[in-house]
């Protein structure tokens, strides 16, 4: 099993979500997060004074998925979350030891 964490632009959430569903993802966790990458945010002015928005709002999508579906899911994110400009985000893929469904106590892929 794999765990995929995708950090994407908030306004692209809907598209990414739909693409992931098509790629076979059955459940996901979405959270509003803030962060920065190599650009370290950007500056704005308010009432004539500059201020830096270092932590840019993003959306983090967490998905647990069967090994064989993982590549398709990553592709789905890449296809929908890419604009080609700075700030498109990142995808982290890691292997997942176990999953437990709390209601039934099932383990492993059955619990996905």
């Amino acid at each position, binding site marked *: 099993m794999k765990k995929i964490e995708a950090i994407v632009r908030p306004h692209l959430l809907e598209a990414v979500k739909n693409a992931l569903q098509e790629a076979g993802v059955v459940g996901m966790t979405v959270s509003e997060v803030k962060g920065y990458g190599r650009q370290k945010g950007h500056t704005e*002015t308010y009432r004539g*004074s500059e*201020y830096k928005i270092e932590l840019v709002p993003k959306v983090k999508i967490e998905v647990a998925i069967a090994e064989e579906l993982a590549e398709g899911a990553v592709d789905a994110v890449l296809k929908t979350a890419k604009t080609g400009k700075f700030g498109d985000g990142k995808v982290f893929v890691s292997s997942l030891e176990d999953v437990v469904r709390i209601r039934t106590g099932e383990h492993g892929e059955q619990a996905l």
Partner: protein
Amino acid sequence: MSMRRRLFVSFGIGVVLMLGVTGLRSIARAQAPAVPVEPAATTAPPPAPVAAAPVAVPDPTGDNTGTASDVVVKDAKAPQLDEVMTTVGHSKIAINLMWTLLTGFLVMFMQAGFALVETGFCRAKNAAHTMAMNFMIYPIGMLGYWICGFALQMGGVGAVAVLGGTPPLNSEFVVTLFGHPFGLFGTKGFFLSADVYDVGVFALFLFQMVFMDTTCTIPTGAMAERWKWSSFLVYGFFISMFTYPLFANWVWGGGWLAQLGVNFGLGHGHVDFAGSSVVHMVGGVAALAGAMVLGPRIGKYTKEGKPVAIPGHHIPMALLGTFILAFGWFGFNPGSTLAGGDLRIAVVATNTMLAGTGGAIAAMVYMMTRFGKPDPSMMANGMLAGLVAITAPCAFVTAPVAMLIGTVAGVLVCWAVFFVEGTLKIDDPVGAISVHGVNGAWGVLSLGLFADGVYGDGWNGVPGKVTGLFYGAPKQFLAQCVGTLTCFVFVFASMWVFFKLVDVILGNRVSAEVELAGLDLPEVGALAYPEFVLSPGSSVGAFEPPKPLPAPAAAPAGATARVESF
């Protein structure tokens, strides 16, 4: 299907009823006098305007409502001139009183505008505190004004003819300097007690009270996000009982600034139609003194002294507040005639909206050209600046000049914000000093420049109309300068000393810990947005986590099984 049928039936009954009523009405109309336009004339004996028509005929156009029959006379056959004049006079004052009260109600609602603007420009952690100050300044200011503020301001104003004469307000404390009388404060009307129990005086109190409260709520913006509640309370009483009433007496209560014309030949004395100086500049200068004594918010300046932007948490709220203020200004300026029968109100109201427009557009264009984006907070400040500036001259200038005054105000407010923040290093989160102080001064000075000599005959007891420098009366401008200077010196000195005294006795500023955490809980005991704070309980509100289900056997007989699934 049955539902649809029922609907259809009730619709049918409705139609039948409507037809029936219409039919009855047309029968009634047919029975009405032949000339329905003048029912009284055809049905009653000829010279009896008092007698009402026996058949009440509806008057949909309103042409026949309010006729001679509404004038009360002893003998309808021979109405006396003095009887008719009494009714006319009463109606005239009634219109004025209605106007003064209604516009006063509009100005009262400006408190809501101020509350939204100031809270929107503050951070979420101080929203309840900022809102609470804006809320409580209304009753606190009113209490102080009722105790002695009104008496000091208006106790010696004399007869306010448009409100029926206000006979009891006739006592001003005067000192004689350089052989001329200097009115300093009034001495009648404390607690609105029995000796001023008069409808005109009460209307005047209401109207002047809401103006005074506008002044009081201006510094709460400049001093927001760090001002101690106890200090704020004392301030509310001080400004409503002393600082505001004294200056207002000098300009509006027949005091020495109003008498500059009569005593020293300076035009009509210091003229301020609706309060650019009396209301706004007093508030703005008090805000300046307060913000200077308080010092900037933590994090407002870098170590090198460069200002750091601290964006407000709710720009839509601030813009809504600005709209409410602009709406309230239709009470503020046109209401200051105290007379609905003074048709100059049309010019006053139109000039007011034009100047607000000029201010908003000028500020927006300025910000766009200088920073690339319009900055909603400066658009709001720009509109308010235009409105503040036109408040004094609104009754005395032409429409193009009103637009010019507003446009200048819109740019002036941007410069002033940068100057106060960048050069003076005074932290004013909402721009109150720039909007109300700087543009209040610009407003009264612009009157001295642009008054066109059309309106204001006999203003402050000086014959002739109010005329400015560009229309050939330089001394009027001089009077405006004296008024502006006096306003600054008097208000700044008194409020500075006041805040310094409070600093020693109570302290003006919250502790650094409180300021960093936000003033909401420590200072007023309520969070503006508790749902956004992560703490046990607060995130789920009053909802208790469900207890484990009891064994099914424990359920009483007859109870239906509950399906526990969400």
